[in-house]
């Protein structure tokens, strides 16, 4: 049995930031467990730039962003194990992990930080009918092949889904000499960041087909073509609008799913809306002493916010180990009201908040000229004007603590109100 104060599961941006922050807050016994052959997580295959504008006030590539944290982690002497897979965790914080050199390890942790990230939704999950040829990839898998393995995945490409990885891969495929015939969004607006639509599609004259989807896949061995169709306002294909597009590659960027198989094993409560653990303001899950951060909690738009959230989780884990996180205060629940898809954190211990309560959320569709309103037990306490809000971008609302101090609040709701309201 190995013993650590804090065990961090996942060495991507979330895990790195959490481990560093735990160390900065006085914890020396830390272990980061990473299943890949290097630290950095998915950032290592994100060789494009645009990372770090908020955290470092400069534009970095994914590997550069990761490198800053990896260097800091190593300078701090934080222990990590690569090529190591966590097989299970329990709610009393026992971790079982495995690798080629240590074999099977039982690790006893005082606190655990879950930072496993997310996985991509697949073709099977979205039920595209047709044959099952090679040439159908999730965008992230294709990105790994191109950027890490150094091989192209095809020459004539259709991309379904306008998630950020799909947009980034559209440009990447063109840069590598492929032809991208179109990027399809089922909705009437793209799912990814506007800057990616501009820099990855518009700048490269890649057609963006809004309100379109793929309804058929053809080809016996390798993909020969896809059937695309227009979609109605409920995102369902419109019969009669089918069109055959010859291509050898279909990339899917149709959603990310937090990877919570380990969390389920520890009986951690999950939120149906986010797919991640229910967390409180300290990023603590329903299991005491088990924290979570990054895309395992909710899928973020940019990595800078992952870093920020993970620093909070790391700091909280350190406090927990030092017995400083006790609280007898009642938990307040947050709730996603009209127009809001989800709110993180889902639970709040008000006396744990230092200056302001930060609420993270995504709206459920595109809105113009609205207010995001925070209510404490139906009483509005904060109102923010938004000229434009899209589900592609995470919204943050900060509520200063002095507004909430001394009040007996049970529930905090966030909702969208039209400007007139």
């Amino acid at each position, binding site marked *: 049995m190995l013993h650590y104060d804090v065990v961090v599961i996942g060495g991507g941006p979330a895990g790195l930031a959490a481990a560093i922050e735990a160390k900065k807050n006085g914890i020396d016994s830390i272990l980061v467990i990473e299943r890949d052959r290097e630290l950095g997580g998915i950032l290592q295959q994100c060789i494009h730039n645009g990372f770090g504008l908020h955290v470092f006030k400069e534009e970095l590539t994914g590997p550069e962003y990761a490198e800053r944290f990896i260097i800091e982690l190593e300078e701090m002497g934080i222990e990590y194990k690569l090529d190591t897979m966590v097989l299970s965790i329990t709610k009393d914080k026992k971790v079982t992990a495995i690798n080629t050199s240590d074999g099977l390890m039982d690790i006893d942790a005082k606190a655990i930080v879950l930072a496993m990230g997310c996985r*991509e939704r697949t073709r099977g*999950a979205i039920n595209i009918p047709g044959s099952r040829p*090679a040439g159908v990839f*999730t965008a992230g898998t294709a990105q790994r092949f*191109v950027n890490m393995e150094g091989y192209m995945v095809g020459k004539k490409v259709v991309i379904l889904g306008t998630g950020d990885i799909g947009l980034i891969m559209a440009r990447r495929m063109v840069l590598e000499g492929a032809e991208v015939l179109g990027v399809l969004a089922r909705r009437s607006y793209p799912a990814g960041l506007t800057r990616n639509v501009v820099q990855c599609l518009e700048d490269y004259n890649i057609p963006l087909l809004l309100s379109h989807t793929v309804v058929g896949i053809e080809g016996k061995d390798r993909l020969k073509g896809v059937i695309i169709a227009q979609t109605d306002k409920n995102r369902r294909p419109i019969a009669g609008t089918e069109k055959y597009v010859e291509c050898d590659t279909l990339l899917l960027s149709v959603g990310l799913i937090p990877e919570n198989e380990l969390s389920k094993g520890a009986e951690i409560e999950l939120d149906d809306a986010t797919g991640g653990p229910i967390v409180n303001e300290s990023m603590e899950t329903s299991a005491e002493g088990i924290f979570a951060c990054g895309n395992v909690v909710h899928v973020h738009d940019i990595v800078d916010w992952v870093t920020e959230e993970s620093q909070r989780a790391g700091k909280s884990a350190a406090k927990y180990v030092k017995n400083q996180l006790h609280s007898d205060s009642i938990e307040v629940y947050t709730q996603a009201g009209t127009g809001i898809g989800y709110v993180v954190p889902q639970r709040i211990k008000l006396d744990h908040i230092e200056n302001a309560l930060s609420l993270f959320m995504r709206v459920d569709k595109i809105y113009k000229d609205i207010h995001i309103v925070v209510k404490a037990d139906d009483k509005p306490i904060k109102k923010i004007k938004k000229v434009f809000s899209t589900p592609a971008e995470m919204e943050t609302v900060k509520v200063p603590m002095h507004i909430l101090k001394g009040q007996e609040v049970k529930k905090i709701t966030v909702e969208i109100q039209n400007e007139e309201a």
Partner: protein
Amino acid sequence: MYDAAIIGAGIIGSNIARELSKYDLKVILLEKDNDVSNGTTKANSGIVHAGYDAEPGTLKAKFNVLGNEMYEKLCRELEVPFRRIGSLVVATKEEDMETIEQLYAKGKANGVPDMKILSKEEAQKLESNLSDNIAGALYAATAGIVGSWEFAIALAENAVDNGVELRLNSEVKDIQKLEESYRLITASGEIQTKYVINAAGLFADAIHNMVSTPTFEIIPNRGQYQLFDKNSGKHVNTVVFQCPTKHGKGVVVLPTVHYNLLVGPNAEAVDSKDALDTSKEGMGFIKEKAKESVKGIRFNEVITSFSGLRAKTPSGDFIIEESKGAKGFINVAAIDSPGLTAAPAIAEYVVNLLKDIAGEFNINKNFRPNRRPSVQFAALSDEEKMKLIEKDPRYGRIICRCENITEGEIVDIIKRNAGATTVDGVKRRARPGSGRCQGGFCSPWVMEILARELNININEIVKDGKNSYILTEATKQPQVQLQEA
């Protein structure tokens, strides 16, 4: 000169090959694809039927019950996942109970043991997720589930272990009848053989027509399936059939041997023998139909959909006989359901047919019924795991995080006889890519391992069929000119 050439390395050809390997014979198993078990065997329900379905007196009835009894021993010998979990035929309305009685009677006539007609309450007690408005059910204890492609792969491997020659990528293009033998012209060269066993599945008619005037036709009939995440794997615990009606057999809801949930198939005529598509209509039908017998199926947990083609013939029964037009040429054709169940019994029968033609065979004294033992890492105790990793560290590297499959297991199934050479071949044998991420994370790693073990370039690795390439060419290389100072 071979004693026997078996055409087709599906569940039938592999069973026959393994059965023939018990004798001192020179046997070749020919397969048109680049892997065994690559046709109907890789896309079906994986059910070992009890045997009440077939009309008494047919070959289907006879071999179903005989084959069912053979499963325990075979699957134990070959380490194939098999569980005798029992089946229910659910009457979704009162008038179906008449059909239930008829099935029971047919089962009795066919010699099916351990059947019972259950009331609604008894059935729901056994299977809590049955629909609320069912009328009753027929329970058959001897029904089971098996890893169908794993079974065929294991049989082919063990046949090769025992001296059978397996030749892949060897589509039979023509057959010439010689004086006392046959010459087979295949995609990988010519061979001469005394006897031919035609186990070519969907293409058995075309193969037979190379030596005879046509006597039967194989008509493809498609069935679509949906496979669910393991979260849904315990939704039912038995094989839940619906009552056959004049409109069709209904769809089946069952757990797989790997604890996923499987729902399907529909039945539809198709005009091509490689029409392996799924369709919106087909998947919609399955979804609606399944609700009649089982409630609460979480269709948002589907991880993949697939199709299989049944090799049907208008007369309905298996065709297992020496060709009337070609001596020493045995057809084993039209093996649709319950073909998987019947396969072991069919293989014994075919070998006896061959003995009738050729006389007794000498026993292969070196026959070993077991494959080289395999490791299922996830099933080992902690102590066993530690020991194994110490001996072979590759068992300490998890490649497939959804199913917890180690590099050691993947290398092992590549290194076996009839081993894996493709990404889907690895998946069918060791399961990486069968889980919820559908290979999103592990496929690059599996390809690296395949390339290394087979000593080929990673962009030569195919997904399944030989033209199913995954990677094209290397990406652009940096054009940096270093200037000498």
